[in-house]
């Protein structure tokens, strides 16, 4: 369902912090900080994860010159059980907080909720974002870090990154959110946890389709449609579905995927990047900066999430997926 934001809340700033391996990302120049230690000098991966979230939030606040006390709400989530890193970060930041879980689509669902609170007049400033830390996520969803299992070409690499955006009332000079679409949970019967792109592509497709339809727009009305972490194969599948639905080939160049591009063409990362931090990091750094620089006027951001757990996979369930989208414009 499409939500139209009459007050057009603005994305005032983004704070993105990433891990050491993310130095190799083609987007790394847009990040606020790339840390050398994947644990942020903390004892555990989960503590490092928490620290990363806090730093990302602080970067976002610093850019606009606000403090923890000025923030009315924080929306966010990660992929660790019960989202303790984000919960604990909220404890330390002392900001009223609701944790949200939409897997890797959390970067968008949190922005949508923050926009609704802004639209309602309840919030002057709110923080919204998502994060993932490779080690903490891999051990939970797949194998221990040092386990020597062969990953297929369809696998994706969970990024270590946190991306948080500071959302406030509409301001002309900042990118503003005009509309959003909350996606359905879509299940096309995919069940391979090493092939998430294939599971998520239909969700991205449905969300894009329904957003365009209800907004009465075509793909070429946008400068960029950027999906979150479909990976190279997932993006191929999304394009395949769009072509099947009558989208012209020249329009397909407007559709890109953050996960597919994240690590460039490095084959060590197989099909590309994934993780809640992937879309958050790219959306809240690269995209925002490009929009402020005037490169893009109108962008549709679509974050996709695979709603599985190790338990559901072991019990033989298929993988339902979701995709949430926001439409951002810049005057």
């Amino acid at each position: 369902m499409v939500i139209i934001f009459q007050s057009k809340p603005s994305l005032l700033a983004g704070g993105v912090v990433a891990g050491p391996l993310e130095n190799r990302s083609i987007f790394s120049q847009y990040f606020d900080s790339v840390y050398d230690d994947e644990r942020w000098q903390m004892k555990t991966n989960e503590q490092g994860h928490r620290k990363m979230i806090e730093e990302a939030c602080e970067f976002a606040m610093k850019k606009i010159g606000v403090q923890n006390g000025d923030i009315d709400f924080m929306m966010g989530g990660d992929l660790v059980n019960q989202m303790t890193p984000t919960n604990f970060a909220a404890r330390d930041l002392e900001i009223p907080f609701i944790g949200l879980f939409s897997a890797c689509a959390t970067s968008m669902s949190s922005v949508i909720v923050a926009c609704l609170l802004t639209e309602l007049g309840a919030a002057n400033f709110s923080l919204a974002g998502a994060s993932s830390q490779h080690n903490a996520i891999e051990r939970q969803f797949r194998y221990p870090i040092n386990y020597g299992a062969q990953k297929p070409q369809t696998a994706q690499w969970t990024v270590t990154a946190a991306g948080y955006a500071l959302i406030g009332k509409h301001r002309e000079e900042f990118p503003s959110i005009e509309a959003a679409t909350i996606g359905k949970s879509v299940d096309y019967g995919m069940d391979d946890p090493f092939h998430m792109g294939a599971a998520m592509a239909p969700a991205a497709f449905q969300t894009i389709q329904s957003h365009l339809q209800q907004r009465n727009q075509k793909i070429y009305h946008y400068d960029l449609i950027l999906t979150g972490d479909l990976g190279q194969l997932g993006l191929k599948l999304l394009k395949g579905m769009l072509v099947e639905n009558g989208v012209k080939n020249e329009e397909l160049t407007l559709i890109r995927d953050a996960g597919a591009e994240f690590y460039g063409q490095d084959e060590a990362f197989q099909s590309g990047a994934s993780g809640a931090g992937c879309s958050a990091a790219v959306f809240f750094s690269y995209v925002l900066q490009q929009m402020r620089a005037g490169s893009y006027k109108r962008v549709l951001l679509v974050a996709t999430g695979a709603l599985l757990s190790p338990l559901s996979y072991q019990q033989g369930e298929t993988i339902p997926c979701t995709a949430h989208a926001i439409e951002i414009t810049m005057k």
Partner: protein
Amino acid sequence: MVMTFVFAFIVGGIICVIGQLLMDIGNLTPGHTLSTLVVLGAILDGMGLYEPLINFAGAGATVPITSFGNSLTHGAMAEAEKHGLVGVLTGMFEVTSSGISAAIIFGFIGALIFKPKGNID
């Protein structure tokens, strides 16, 4: 003796190839693959075929995980021969458990001295 190395290489390699085919074509996870191979080793020993393989290929047959099923079965059968039905139960770890005990000890030591690292190259 040089031939033993060649046979160890070939037989060990072939057992790994069976594992790879189970993974790629059979679409099994590593856990399923290893479990299947262990059961295979136990059955081969039950038919009296694993010991000739060890004689033939040396480490080519003792190093792959199939030998784990073999040695468990071997212990159970040896004890069953001596003590009857109860031996089936008690003889299991009689012959060998060096793989398990080594893994436990080195797992513990490893946990004390190493930290997980998410590097890629």
